[in-house]
């Protein structure tokens, strides 16, 4: 089984630094998700691991062996490309079996393995089609199939589910996770879908502008974001980050006259509270004006204008009776408060008792 160690990895394109200072240890048999905004270097990192590009600095160690200079074919890795990279001249069947054939794996297994993968991905009826005759989602599933069938010890997936509908994606998620566990595959997975990241990952690496912002378990990432960036990046809608000011020596929401915020450490400049941790409460201590209401079926998001402090989104279950322009009162537990300093780093003085044992 293969762990992956990236040591001060760097990749430059001309004078553009795509990634730098990437140190990650992915333990064998675990599932790591790379998360981050578009263009932050997720695909680049995957490509370095796969050996498709050579890093301009740093090393890649897989299963204890320094593979930085090894060609991709000798790394025993499977990969789902963000752009699928299907062979246009091969049928779905041939695309999926490509790896088995070139690696000369016993032919008698092919049929059974193909059948299993095709069924898993709902491709049974499409095996004889060419990629150009498939819908986007079907193509993506073929790409997935090609990676899944190989059962390589290390698997890299770059947004493998982005073009699938919710239900299929849900099923796939479960299947991939099951497969990964069952075969002890070391998985590095790129996704934009937070639910995916949260529900699948053992560890999440949050990238920002080519650097690591936070590397943690999903719970920790959610409960203890290391920075304002991490706080804002995780959660839909993201955490509300409100501006603070000091009134008579105590921190309060900017533009408000209090109340003082408990637990704010020295130098706290911003307060973060997740929408799901805020509630509309007639007894709430913060007064706000409803800016807009968005309905999402299971719940609604009420955007509340807190003046100089900013706008806070509040998640309320079901349809909200609020209307834009109404005045409401907000409330939240001190336990759910996150404070950030001037640099954007989280301040240690804000424990999250709810999630602590």
């Amino acid at each position, binding site marked *: 089984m293969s762990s992956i160690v990236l040591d001060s990895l760097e990749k430059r394109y001309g004078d553009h630094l795509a990634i730098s200072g990437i140190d990650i240890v992915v333990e064998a048999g675990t599932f790591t998700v790379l998360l981050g905004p578009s263009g932050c270097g997720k695909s680049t990192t995957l490509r370095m691991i*796969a050996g*498709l590009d050579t890093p301009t600095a740093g090393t890649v160690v897989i299963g204890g062996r320094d593979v930085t200079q090894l*060609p*991709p*074919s000798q790394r*025993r*890795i*499977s*990969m789902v*490309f963000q*752009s699928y*990279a*299907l*062979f*246009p*001249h*091969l049928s779905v069947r041939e695309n999926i079996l*490509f*790896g088995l*054939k*070139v*690696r000369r794996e016993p032919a008698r297994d092919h049929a059974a393995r193909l059948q299993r993968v095709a069924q898993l991905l709902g491709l049974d009826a499409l095996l004889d089609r060419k990629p*150009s005759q498939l819908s986007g989602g079907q193509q993506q599933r073929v790409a997935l199939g*090609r990676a899944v069938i*190989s059962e390589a010890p290390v698997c890299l997936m770059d947004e493998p589910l982005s073009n699938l509908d919710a239900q299929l994606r849900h099923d796939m998620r479960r299947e991939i996770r099951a497969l990964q566990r069952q075969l002890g595959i070391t998985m590095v997975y790129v996704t934009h879908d937070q639910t995916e990241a949260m529900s699948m990952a053992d560890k999440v690496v949050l990238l920002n502008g080519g650097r690591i912002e936070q590397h943690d378990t999903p719970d920790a990432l959610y409960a203890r974001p290391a920075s304002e960036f991490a706080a804002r990046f995780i959660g839909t809608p993201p955490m509300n980050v409100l501006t603070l000011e000091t009134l008579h020596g105590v921190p309060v929401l900017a533009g408000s006259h209090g109340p003082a915020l408990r637990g704010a450490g020295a130098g706290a400049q911003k307060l973060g509270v997740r929408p799901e941790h805020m509630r509309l409460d007639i007894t709430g201590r913060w007064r706000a004006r409803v800016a807009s209401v968005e309905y999402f079926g299971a719940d609604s998001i009420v955007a509340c204008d807190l003046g100089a402090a900013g706008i806070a989104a509040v998640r309320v279950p079901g349809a909200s009776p609020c209307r834009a322009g109404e005045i409401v009162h907000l409330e939240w537990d001190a336990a759910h408060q996150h404070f950030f300093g001037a640099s954007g780093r989280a301040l240690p003085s804000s424990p999250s008792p709810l999630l602590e044992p």
Partner: protein
Amino acid sequence: MHASTARLSLARQHAITGWLLVLPAVALLAAFTHYPALATLWHSFFSTPKGSRPARFVGLENYALMADDPVFWQSLWNNLWFALGTIPTSVGLALAMALWVNGKLSGRGLLRMAYFTPTVLPMVAVANIWLFFYTPQYGLIAQVTGLFGLPSVNWLGSRETALPALMLVTIWKEAGFFMIFYLAALQGIPPTLREAAMLEGASRGQYFRRVLWPLLMPTTLFVLINALINAFRLVDHVVVMTRGGPDNASTLLLFYIYQVGFAFWDTAYAATLTVVLLAVLAATAWIKFNWLDRRTHYQ
């Protein structure tokens, strides 16, 4: 608007645009290829006019004559061997060259140049240079083999070696030419496919066989048809190097046609031979084209 008439008009619009686009080229082709070619076909049913003796209709007499002409049969056979000997080798080499100079080989700019030179050099000059290479005793080949104490061979003067010697020149001339097209075609293949194949553990050979080769099929098709046609069309080197000799051992069909037409001035017979050549070429090219084009992947 009525849907069905509208449908018709869209198809027609498409057709008209298509026709307009091909029209200039086809008109010129008709004027300078088809019309003269048809005239050639027409002439094959007549005797050759000589001065005031006009051509008279002779039906298939020219064809009967041809069936009895041993030189015709010999040149046809020679040509078949020539095609067999040159086409696969030159296409194979062309592909290898393209792969080499497309890759990260050191000095590939120079290599590209080296491979391409045969295309740039005029055939007459080249044939003369090859004549030197083949000259017994002090020719380049003789000088090299002489170093190893091998006997000097009269390459162009022996019936056994004359045709193969010409084949080598042809391969040399053609491989670099076809390489250019492979090289250009390689640029159209997305590099991700290579990456995907490598990740799957494909060796370079496997990548070539399973991905590159099928994707290069359109080019191969093009090159094959051209190679086939060239095998019947390139004769400049025959003219300079052997004039078909010794004793027709290296006579190729077109060279023979050339002799009949431009040395014997038996235009009717030349036309007859041409018709046969055309038929052979058209048939093989058409079969090859239809067969391959249908199997060719064009994305």
